[in-house]
């Protein structure tokens, strides 16, 4: 049944996937959240309305989102070298993963902020709150469930991105599935890795949903 399976390889691949996921999700949120907030605030009729800045940021985000991830992996090699000292392995995969996912997450954050009741922002303005006080005291707390839901979606998208990171030798479960399961017809390896990926995706969705429910007070 599991003739081709080397459980040590599977273990290592699982660990690689988890490290890539945690690292890239962390940095994507760190960069995407402020970017999403700025995208929102500079939008039309918003607190810090600024047409040119919004258009420029929005264009940059769209450019990054339209580049296929495999190409991003390769194009980014020089920058990745500069940032982490190598373009290979788990560490080499994280910068392109972040550059691929952060703009995506920024859009999800922007959407979550748009869902915040305009009246609530207006009430904060009427109290004499500054833009900064409104962002931290009202906007982000009100949008938190949406921001967390966006992080869940981003995490799951990152799981499938990590499968492609094998191109730079990053390893991971997706890489295992492609190299052994698909290219060498080792169906059992494919099945096991895909099941593990499924478990990961399910787990992320479950945890994300639970957190959103806990945070929602509506």
């Amino acid at each position, binding site marked *: 049944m599991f003739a081709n399976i080397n459980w040590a390889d599977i273990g290592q691949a699982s660990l690689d996937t988890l490290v890539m996921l945690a690292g890239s999700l962390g940095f994507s949120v760190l960069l995407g959240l402020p970017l999403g907030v700025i995208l929102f605030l500079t939008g039309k009729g918003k607190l810090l309305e600024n047409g040119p800045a919004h258009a420029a940021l929005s264009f940059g985000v769209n450019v990054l989102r339209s580049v296929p991830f495999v190409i991003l992996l390769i194009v980014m090699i020089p920058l990745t070298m500069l940032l982490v000292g190598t373009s290979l392995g788990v560490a080499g995969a994280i910068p392109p993963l972040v550059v691929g996912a952060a703009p995506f997450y920024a859009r999800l954050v922007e959407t979550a902020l748009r869902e915040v009741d305009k*009246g*609530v922002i207006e*009430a904060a303005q*009427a*109290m*004499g709150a*500054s833009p900064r006080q409104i962002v931290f005291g009202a906007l982000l707390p*009100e949008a938190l469930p949406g921001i967390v839901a966006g992080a869940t979606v981003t995490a799951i998208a990152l799981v499938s991105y990590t499968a492609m990171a094998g191109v730079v030798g990053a390893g991971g479960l997706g890489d295992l599935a492609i190299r052994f399961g698909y290219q060498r017809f080792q169906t059992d390896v494919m099945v096991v890795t895909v099941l593990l990926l499924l478990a990961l995706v399910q787990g992320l969705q479950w945890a994300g949903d639970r957190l959103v429910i806990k945070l929602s*007070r509506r």
Partner: protein
Amino acid sequence: MISFQSVGKTFARATAPALHDVTLQVQAGEVFGVIGQSGAGKSTLIRLINGLERPSAGKVLTDGEDVGALDAAGLRALRRRVGMIFQHFNLLSSKTVAQNVAYPLKVAGVAKAQIGPKVEQLLERVGLGDQAHKYPAQLSGGQKQRVGIARALANGPKILLCDEATSALDPQTTEQILDLLSELNRELGLTIVLITHEMEVIRRVCHRVAVLDAGSVVESGDVAEVFLHPQHAVTRALVADAAGLGAAATPGALRLTFRGQATYEPILGRIARDTGVDYSILAGRIDRIRDEPYGQLLVSLVGGDVVAARERLSAAGVRVEEA
């Protein structure tokens, strides 16, 4: 306290101005009502007072400051002296009742140690002392508006702005919230500007009223005078909704208005008997304007000496008008 001097407001890309040449004064300590149909410009007017909108023409003075000329910091400082409540309450759904009331205190930089007791005192005042740790979604509409009021009062404002504050509430809850506003007006000397499309709200709490139609003030004055003797067609329509005296217009009918103690005296019966006039009451209402009792009857007088009857009614302090 608040003064509008020939104020106009035209929104970008709007065909007609939202407000046109509005001049009015709100005195310190009064409850001033603005009534008008939907789209008349009421919200625009009230939002000019705390600078949520800027005038396109004329001047708005709030507590001595020219709102249109303030910079961002000046505007924030002014807004901390002017509370505001809203039709849909606009509470932070992610925060508890206590945290909602604490927010404006944090915004104003009140020391942490003072916030807790202050919040407790505010919630006690609006009758929500036991709801501090609930979330807005767990409250009724009336309770949510009480939180809104506590929040608006947190920084001890001189002025409270109410944008359709009772329009989302049922009649009983509306009454309770209006009573609370009246109490706050009396106890704290709070100047209140409230806007509404319901004459009943004006009748219950306001001292003076301005009627807004298509962006212009068409009538203004003492609430009793405007309510009992509306001049403009729009005002009449708004009053008719409230008083139920609109429909029954019969040729030759008279509208009799009794105010104060006269409301409870048997004036009409006595005069009818003395002058040999028969009367039939077509419609009527006896109620109060704020605390003052009034009665308004639509009657037709037949037979006897109608002229003398009218004279004696007038002499007895009853206002007689052709309906």
